[in-house]
C-alpha cells in the first residue's frame, strides 16, 4: 500500500470513528448518572439531524442546528422526567428495556412526522462534490467539521466536569449517590441534566454527520448499536476512552477492507470486540468500579 492510499484509509477510519464516538459519549454520560444504557441514544442523533434538515430550509444553518440541539435536549429531559423516573423503582434492567421502547416510539413518531424519505442537512462548507486534497488523499471538508466537533465536545465536557460546580456535582453523584445527597446535591436534578446533555450531544453529532451520512427516521438504531459497541469497547462510563475506542474501531473497519471483503467488515470488528471483552470484561480502558451497575 502506498502512502496516499494509507492516508485515504486513515481519513475514512477517522470519519467512522468520530461518528461512533459521538454517540458513545452520550451513552456514557447517562450511564454515569444513572447506571442505565439508554438505547434511545441513536434516536437523539436522528432527531437532531431531522429537525435541523427541516429548519435549514427556512433559516440559517447555525440557527437550525442550535434549535435542533435545544429541542432534542428538551425531549431528553422530558423522557427522563415523565417516563424513566416513574419506572426507576422497578430497577435498572426494566429501565433499559423502557429505553428500547422509547427508541421505538421516537422512531415511529419521526416516521409519522417526516415520512420515510431520506433527508440531508446542507454541507457546512462547500457541497456534496467539494473535496480537499491532503498528501494525496481526498476527502469532504465535512470530515474536518466532524472531527473538529468531536474534539470540541470532548474538551468542553472535560472542562465542564472538572471546573464547573454542576459538573463536579454530577461527578460526585455518579461516585456516590448517597454521599452527594448528604452534601445537598439533588441526584434527580443531576440525572435530568445528564439526559439533557446527552440528548444535546447526540443531536449535535446527528447534525454534524448528517451532510455526509444523510439521515432518515430509522438511522437511530444503526447508530445506537455502533455507539454502544464503542462505549463497551472503551469501557462504559469513560468518555475519553469512548473516543479512543471509536477511533480504534473506525480504523479497524477502514483498514480491514484492504485484506477482507467489505461484507466481512463487521465480522472482523465483532471478533476483535469479543476478544477484548473476554480478556478484559470492563473494556479496553474501563475499571472494575466503573463497570459495576449503578443504582438509579
Amino acid at each position: 500500500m502506498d502512502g496516499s492510499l494509507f492516508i485515504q484509509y486513515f481519513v475514512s477510519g477517522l470519519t467512522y470513528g468520530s461518528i461512533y464516538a459521538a454517540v458513545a459519549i452520550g451513552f456514557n454520560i447517562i450511564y454515569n448518572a444513572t447506571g442505565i444504557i439508554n438505547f434511545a441514544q441513536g434516536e437523539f442523533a436522528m432527531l437532531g439531524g431531522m429537525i435541523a434538515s427541516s429548519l435549514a430550509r427556512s433559516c440559517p444553518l447555525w440557527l437550525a442546528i442550535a434549535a435542533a440541539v435545544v429541542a432534542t435536549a428538551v425531549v431528553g429531559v422530558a423522557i427522563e422526567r415523565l417516563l424513566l423516573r416513574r419506572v426507576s423503582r422497578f430497577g435498572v434492567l426494566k429501565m433499559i428495556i423502557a429505553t428500547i421502547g422509547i427508541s421505538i416510539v421516537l422512531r415511529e413518531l419521526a416516521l409519522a412526522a417526516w415520512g420515510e424519505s431520506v433527508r440531508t442537512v446542507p454541507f457546512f462548507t462547500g457541497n456534496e462534490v467539494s473535496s480537499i486534497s491532503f498528501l494525496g488523499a481526498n476527502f469532504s471538508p465535512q470530515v474536518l467539521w466532524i472531527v473538529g466537533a468531536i474534539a470540541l465536545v470532548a474538551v468542553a465536557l472535560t472542562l465542564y466536569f472538572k471546573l464547573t460546580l454542576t459538573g463536579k456535582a454530577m461527578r460526585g453523584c455518579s461516585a456516590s449517590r448517597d454521599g452527594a445527597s448528604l452534601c445537598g446535591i439533588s441526584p434527580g436534578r443531576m440525572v435530568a441534566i445528564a439526559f439533557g446533555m446527552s440528548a444535546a450531544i447526540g443531536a449535535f453529532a446527528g447534525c454534524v454527520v448528517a451532510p455526509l451520512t444523510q439521515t432518515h427516521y430509522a438511522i437511530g438504531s444503526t447508530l445506537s448499536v455502533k455507539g454502544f459497541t464503542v462505549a463497551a469497547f472503551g469501557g462504559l462510563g469513560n468518555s475519553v476512552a469512548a473516543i479512543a475506542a471509536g477511533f480504534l474501531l473506525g480504523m479497524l473497519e477502514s483498514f480491514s477492507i484492504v485484506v477482507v471483503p467489505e461484507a466481512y467488515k463487521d465480522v472482523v470488528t465483532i471478533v476483535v470486540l469479543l476478544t477484548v471483552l473476554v480478556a478484559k470484561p470492563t473494556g479496553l480502558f474501563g475499571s472494575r468500579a466503573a463497570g459495576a451497575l449503578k443504582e438509579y
Partner: protein
Amino acid sequence: MRLGRIARIVIFCALAVSLLPSAFAAPKGDPIKIGAVFAVTGPAAYLGAPEDRTARMVVDEINKDGGILGRPVQLIVKDTGASSEKAISFAKQLIDEDNVVAIIGPTTSGESMAIKDICQKSGVPLISCASAETITTPIAKYVFKVAPKDNYVTEAIYKTMNKMGISKIGVLAANTGFGNGGKAQLEKYAQAYGITIAISEVYDANATDLTALLTKVNATGVQAIVNWSIEPAQAIVAKNMKQLKMTQQLFQSHGFANIKYVAAAGEAAEGIIFPCSRLVVADQLPDSNPQKKLLQKYNADYRAAYKEDASTFGGHAYDSLAIIKAAIESAKSADPAKIAAAIEGVKGLSGTAGIFGFSAQDHNGLQPDAIVMVTVKKGKFVLYEGK
C-alpha cells in the same frame, strides 16, 4: 343544552354520511377483495410506500368509475415492514380469512419468494412488484410479476458500456435481496458483453459512509462502477466518489428512478446513468409513444393526490391492478383460478413499466425495449442518448 347541540350535529353528520353513497352511482354487490402485501414501513418503505399510495388511488378511481364487472373493489393492504416472516403470515391471512381473489406485492424479492409457494398451492394469483428473475423463473401457474426482469436491466447497462468503450468495471451491491440479485445478474452477463468485473463487493445496506470501500475499488483501475442498491446507499456512493475525486462513470440500478434520490445526492448525482422504464421521462417521449398519455396521467394524478412525484415503484402497483382488472373483465369472473388463466391471455396492455403481453411461458410480460437508459442533467432525469 350544549351537549344537545353537539348530539344533533353528530346525528346530522351520521345521516349525511349514510346518504352519501346513494348520491353517486356507486358500484353495487359483493366487493371484489384484492389483497396487497407491501413494505409500507421499514427499510424498503421507499418502494412500498409509493406502492401503497398508488394502489389506494387506483382502487378509488376504479370504484368511482363503477368498479369491475359492476362490483366494487375492496383493497386490503398489509404492511410487512419488509419482513419475509410477516409477508408469509399476511399472505395466509389474506387467503384463508379475507378470501381475497388475488394478491399484489410483495415489495421486495425476498418477500415475494417467501410467499410464492403459498399462493401457488392455494391457487390465488400473485402479482409481485419485485424484480428478481427467480419469481417467475421457473414459472408457477399463479405467480406473475410486473417489474422488468433483472437481466433486461443489466443487459441495457452492458449495451451502453459497449457503446461507451468501457470494458473493466467494479460492482458494488447492498447486502439485500435486491443488491445480491443485481450483482449475480451483472456477473452472469459480463462475459457475453466482453466486460471484465475487476472487483465485486457487497456492503451493509445501512452503511453511512463508503469511502474506504471506494478507495479499494479506485485502486483497481476500473473505468466504471455499477452500484446496485436503494436509498440511502445509492446517494452515499455518488457523494463519496466525488469527495474522493474519482472520475469513473457511475451507473446505478433502476432503484435510482425517483427524483427524490437525485435531490438526496445533490450535485453528486450529475451524470449518473441508470436503466429504467419510461415513467420518469414521460414528458420527453414523442407523442406517438403508446405509453405517454398514461404515464403523464399517472404522474399528474399521483402528484395531485400526494404532493410528491410518482416513482416507477408506485407504477408497479398501478400495473398490477390494471392487469387484474383486465383479467377479471376478460374472464367475466372474479374466481381466482379464472383470473390466473385470464392474465396469461392479457396482451398489448399499456402499463407504466411498458407494454404487457403475458403467455403461459412468460409471466413477466415485458420485453427488453421496456427499458431505456436515463441520466441526470441539472437535477433532472433526461433520456441518455450517448456522448
